[in-house]
């Protein structure tokens, strides 16, 4: 009898267990659990836009590339550790990896997503697309001026398994910059938008300012082809200038705040390995330039002192509140730069107005940097001094402190004249950046083999 109970119990337990296993199986292995609760699968354009703008401010015109090429331009000097290495013209593929990654995997890819989302039938938002195109052209321009040939036509298609995009020549990249900007203007002129531009931390959705920015960036890069296109470059640039920025209020700037501090400010508090470069400080000091106290801090002895390139003068002045305060804005492009472009075009083409444009360019910079017009100083130091290419580019160099433009202009024009840093490991100032380590490693067949002493296409 007991055995029968045992048998029944045994079979009951077995059957129940098996039932439990089979029924709970499908519940237990619930694939809906494999949807990440922390990350959305889709986000609107207005949350992508500020992300891109922040990344551009941080990587393109914040601390990273700007620090390196401003050291080379002797506006900064690297006095310690890696920055001292850069000061002696050593820059490795690994050093530029992070900025390269951000350009493609943060800036471009998210801009492409915005352009895609803004182009969907029924949700067409051409203004959003236009803003994205301006940002893409701006990034592409700054990047190609540093790196030369870049992947573009095959790039950004990783989700379609294009994992090793080919490199386009800089000429093709430049064609795309202009095409993007032309399309941007068309899109920005379109008034039928399902979604209006939102989330814009640069121009607060002011579309007319975006149009001016498109034309200004176009002028910058048309001029950059002066060695290639000669007078045609100046003529085209001048045409673009006409529709560009009209005052300092139009400046193309990325803001910073206490929670997200200016990148140079972060570098100075967290690393601190750069000081003001002697070349820039001396130029400013010799002219009693009112911008000096804004560009630089006083050193320990109360003076403005620049470090002679490669001299490791750690007691020299640190960068000042213009570009290194917590909330100093990073500059994608300024009205002042546009006026310098205009001055150069008019000067080279022999057109009237070069002098006026030059004086307006310096005045705009002085006003922007110091917050005051400083008309007396301008009158006695700038105004009326006959304009020359050297004057234009040297003043543009001063005004362009803490941007990538002095390095672009130096390679194009040879101004200002710079001597080689003490302890330089190569005989001359590098003429480009190396390609990123990740490209060397994972796109080996396509990435061109270059040294940093080779010239980019527009400089050849």
């Amino acid at each position, binding site marked *: 009898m007991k055995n029968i109970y045992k048998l029944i119990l045994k079979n009951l337990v077995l059957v129940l267990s098996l039932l439990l296993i089979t029924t709970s199986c499908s519940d237990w292995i619930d694939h809906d659990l494999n949807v990440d609760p922390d*990350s959305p699968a889709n986000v609107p354009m207005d*949350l992508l836009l500020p*992300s891109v703008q*922040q990344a551009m401010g941080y*990587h393109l015109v914040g601390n990273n590339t700007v620090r390196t090429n401003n050291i080379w331009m002797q506006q900064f000097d690297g006095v310690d550790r890696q920055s001292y290495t850069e000061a*002696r013209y050593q820059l490795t593929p690994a050093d530029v990896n992070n900025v390269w990654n*951000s350009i493609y995997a943060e800036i471009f890819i998210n801009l492409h997503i915005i352009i895609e989302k803004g182009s969907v039938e029924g949700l067409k938002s051409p203004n959003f697309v236009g803003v994205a195109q301006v940002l893409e052209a701006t990034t592409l321009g700054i990047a190609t001026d540093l790196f030369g040939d870049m992947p573009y036509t095959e*790039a950004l298609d990783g*989700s379609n398994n294009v994992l090793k995009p080919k490199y386009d020549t800089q000429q093709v990249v430049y064609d795309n910059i202009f095409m993007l900007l032309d399309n941007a203007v068309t899109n920005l002129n379109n008034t039928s938008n399902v979604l209006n531009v939102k989330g814009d931390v640069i121009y607060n959705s002011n579309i007319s300012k975006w149009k001016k920015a498109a034309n200004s960036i176009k002028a910058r890069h048309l001029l950059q082809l002066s060695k290639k296109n000669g007078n045609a470059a100046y003529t085209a640039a001048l045409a673009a200038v006409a529709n560009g920025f009209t005052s300092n209020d139009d400046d193309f700037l990325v803001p910073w705040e206490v929670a997200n501090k200016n990148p140079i400010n*972060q570098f100075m508090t967290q690393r601190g390995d750069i000081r003001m470069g002697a070349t820039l400080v001396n130029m400013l000091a010799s002219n009693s330039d009112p911008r000096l106290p804004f560009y630089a801090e006083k050193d320990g002895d109360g003076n403005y002192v620049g470090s002679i390139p490669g001299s490791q003068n750690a007691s020299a002045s640190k960068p000042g509140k213009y570009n290194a305060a917590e909330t100093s804005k990073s500059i994608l492009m300024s009205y002042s730069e546009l006026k310098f472009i205009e001055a150069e075009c008019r000067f080279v083409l022999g057109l009237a107005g070069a002098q006026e444009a030059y004086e307006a360019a310096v005045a705009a910079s002085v006003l922007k940097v110091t917050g005051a017009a400083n008309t007396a100083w301008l009158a006695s130091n700038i105004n009326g001094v006959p304009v020359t290419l050297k004057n234009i580019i040297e003043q543009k160099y001063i005004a362009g402190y803490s941007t990538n433009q002095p390095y672009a202009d130096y390679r194009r024009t040879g101004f200002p004249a710079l001597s080689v840093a003490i302890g330089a490991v190569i005989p001359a100032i590098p003429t480009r950046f190396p390609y990123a380590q990740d490209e060397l490693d994972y796109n080996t067949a396509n990435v061109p083999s270059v040294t940093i002493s080779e010239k980019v296409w527009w400089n050849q």
Partner: protein
Amino acid sequence: MKTKLNGFLTLLLALMVQITFAQEKTVTGKVSDASGPLPGVTVIIKGTKTGTQTDFDGKYSIRANTGAVLQFSFVGMKTVSQAVGASNIMNIVMQEDAESLEEVVITAVGISRKEKELGYSVQTVKAEDIRTKPNADVVNSLAGATSGVSITSSAGDAGASTFMTIRGSASITGNNQPLFIVNGLPIITGGGYSGVAGVNTSSRSIDINPDDIASVSVLKGGAATALYGVRAANGAVIITTKSGKNLTARKIEFNSSVGFSQVSQLPAMQKKYAQGNNGVWAGGSAFSYGPKISSLEYDGDETYKWDPNGRLVATGAGNGTPAKYYDPYEFFQTGATTNNGLSISNGNENGSFFFSLSNLDQEGIVPNNQFGRTTVRLNATTKLSEMINFGVDMAYTNSRAVQIQKGSNVSGVMLGLLRTATTFDNSAGYEFPDGTQRNYRNGGGYDNPYWVSNNVKFEEDVNRFTGGVNFNIKFSDFFNIGYNGGVDWYSRRYIDQYKIGSRGNPLGYLGEFQSYSRTFNSDLLFNFQKEFSEDFNAKLTLGNNFYGSFSKNLFGDADGLSIPDFYQLSNSATNTTSSGESQQRTMAVFADLQLAYKNMLFLGLTGRNDWATTMPEANDDAFYPSASLGFIFTEIEGLKNNSILSFGKLRGSVARTANIAGPYNTSNYYNATSTADGWTSGVNFPYAGQTGFQVTSGLGNPDLKHETQDSWEIGTDLRFFKNRFGVDFTYFSNKNTDLLMSVPIAPSSGFTSVFLNAASMESKGIEISVTASPVKNENFTWDILANFTKFTNKVTSLAEGVDNISLPGGFTVPQVRAVVGREYGSVFGEDWYRDENGRVLINDDPTDSYRDGYPMTNSKQGLVAIGDTKPDWTANMTNTFNYKNLSFSFLIDVKSGGMMYNGTAFAMNYFGTSERTGNREVYYTPQGTIDFSTTPAGNIKVFDGVYGHVDANGNGVSSGVTNVTPIVEDQRWFQGQGSNFGGGPSVAAMEDASWVRLRDISISYTFPKISETIKDLNIYVSGKNLWIDTPYSGVDPETSLSGAGNGQGMDYFNSPGSKSYVVGVKMTF
């Protein structure tokens, strides 16, 4: 029934005999074994203290009552018990004790099996082997105890993490640490990865009270772990805790120990030159490239706030107080540890009970570094009926730590100590009355280490509960059902605080983190066993497993504190919060069939099918089989009872095991935006009053498959001379294919990685364990256990077109990588320019910018492999001596080969503090050559290499002529390519990290029964890492910058290792 009756009759008979013949007489006899008389055999009357020993001829004589039971015992022999009968002569033949072979080991899913039956290698570590070791984390106590296992303690900090791998690594970027099972339940033991900065956090294996452990089985190969399916690829550590089973009376045990620890090896410093630059003293200078200390004295200026003695001036120009060198290592303290434990256990045929309570408090060698742990464990079983056994097992742990900043971090204590200029005394105050910091850079640079240890704190607190229920329903000898289900639940929180004025967070900082993790595991087993004949029996287990894990965390931080020293998230204008959640489940059915023939042939077959939520729905399951065979050939007639070869077994196994993807890898997502460039901490959202998202830089993959590990092993277990000498040899081969990894891709594709079944790697090699008992008699035994391991662990392929990928734990330069065709874990960095034979090019071109006579960094080729971190082989040997009640043992641990990046020394070169920079004195002739008449001869060296130069294209050109140019390593060299910051290549900092160490040594004495209350009293003294011999010039090379992570082999201002001593007592009541 029959058995019961027999037992009863025997008892009755015994009683009758006892009553009838209870009278004392002298019993004599001779004890022998197969080879002749046995001297030294203990003969006692069971249940009394009366006893004697056999003499040289094996003879004994004892007075005993008729019916009393004489017990004959001898080491290595089976104990014989025999009742005194009518005869006055009792001759005994003892059999050798094959008990070690009969030893039962716990294998996968809690199935216990005799070790001799196994077709794969398992090594067991006993409570006694770990009891006296002064380690908070039991994983450290397994170091050197077995073969095939690699354990790295990341630092000597109290509570520092451990990194353990078995038979190398099986995954490229995933987890490579083994599965930990405690009493049948998998527990979470990860954690402890800290990155190159921050603090050394603990591995969660530290939550186990080592004193609770009865035994640890290390399952190494695929066949051993195949029943764990998708969690089996890295081996398993099976921990069984103490219980009241096998007890017949109550037992109260009390443990107490006090320990001390000190820093072990430290990098050597130069002590000749003062703070300054280019031979000139400069207060606040980053460097120690000043004048000779012997040429300086203080000016006594009390207004100079950075040094109480004033500035340094030339001897004669000051107050006569000579400059001195300050030893930075005085910063370290002697750490103290107290550990107390109490356990109460009892048991009888109806159940068992075990309760323990322990408390550990540790103070580290870095001031204010602490670790503490309190544990409670309860394990109880009871018989509910003849059929049903029910048990519970519960453990609570509170682990708490205060950790101090380390590594590549302006607050790192070693970084601050070792960069501090020679003539600056960090200990002369770290804070001015106004709260600002006093440091050697006059307020800039790095934190004063004393500031860090007092003002920068990382406090961690873990509360953890693991527990489960188990029951067994025994329907018959043929069939029973077993169940074991439980949870591992813990909350972890930490507070990361920086006082205002800290160099890394000048405005002050507070980070608060809380997490909640839970795993659930349920194993249901149907066990069948049948003896078909005397020679053939079979056991079958059918099982089902459910497993789930869930974790959720919440993080908030406040950057920039408004009120000093008030650490609250609201005390800041800028605080951010974030949260994370992760969940996954698996399910499996499995079968385990064991067939045994004649105690000679043992065949094991297992199969398991796994389902996982983290895999794509269409492809969420996989099947994993294994087969193993054990063949005891000494059971063959003719080989049986051989006097030389006492036992011989051949074993072999094949298995397929696996690994699954982590959650959320099957599709693409967007992330809250943050970005950084490696130079600064970066920016994030909210930003400008907005939230921001960006697409994840890693591409998901809806076509994932399971990872597969195909493994096989063969081995022999040979024991000679009555088991006095044994050799266990294993050859293993693991082939891992379809390894899931985030494959790095060209960023120009718009993404930096894609998740793929891309890689394959293999691990194959040998493990040899030797046991020997050179001396073995009643009073004195000497036992040796030695292990040798040699294997290769090569990456055989990565994704198409990818020949290397970076592992976490390195820098931008150098990195630790997995490289196709190389051992897993290669250091990648820049190299010198070399000729085609690999000889370094030494510059001979006076016109270029490189210095003549010095090597040149090859930046053009980018990063290349510059050294493997995996050792060539490892070995260890434990010698144990027992003399009566005194036991002495020591463990020598050897690691041969394996490179380490000594970034510490490389960076110290730049700052002029490394010992190497002490030989900088050089004088030049007017022609610019070294003036040999004045330059100290010892400073002159010639770099190994051949002359060459770098051409205009950046390529090295060799002249083929061996370099003979004498040079001196001066400041210019060290601040150039003689250091990382000067642009030197990482290859110059690669060092051999081999070692021979006295890992453990202990002396223990057990007092004979002191009283009825104190049944057992044991005192011991032990030491750890008391002696290390290594060519590595930095800290103890058993170190890991980033803690428990795959990227090992990095030393960049790592916290030093420690040596420790402990005195302890164990009392049994």
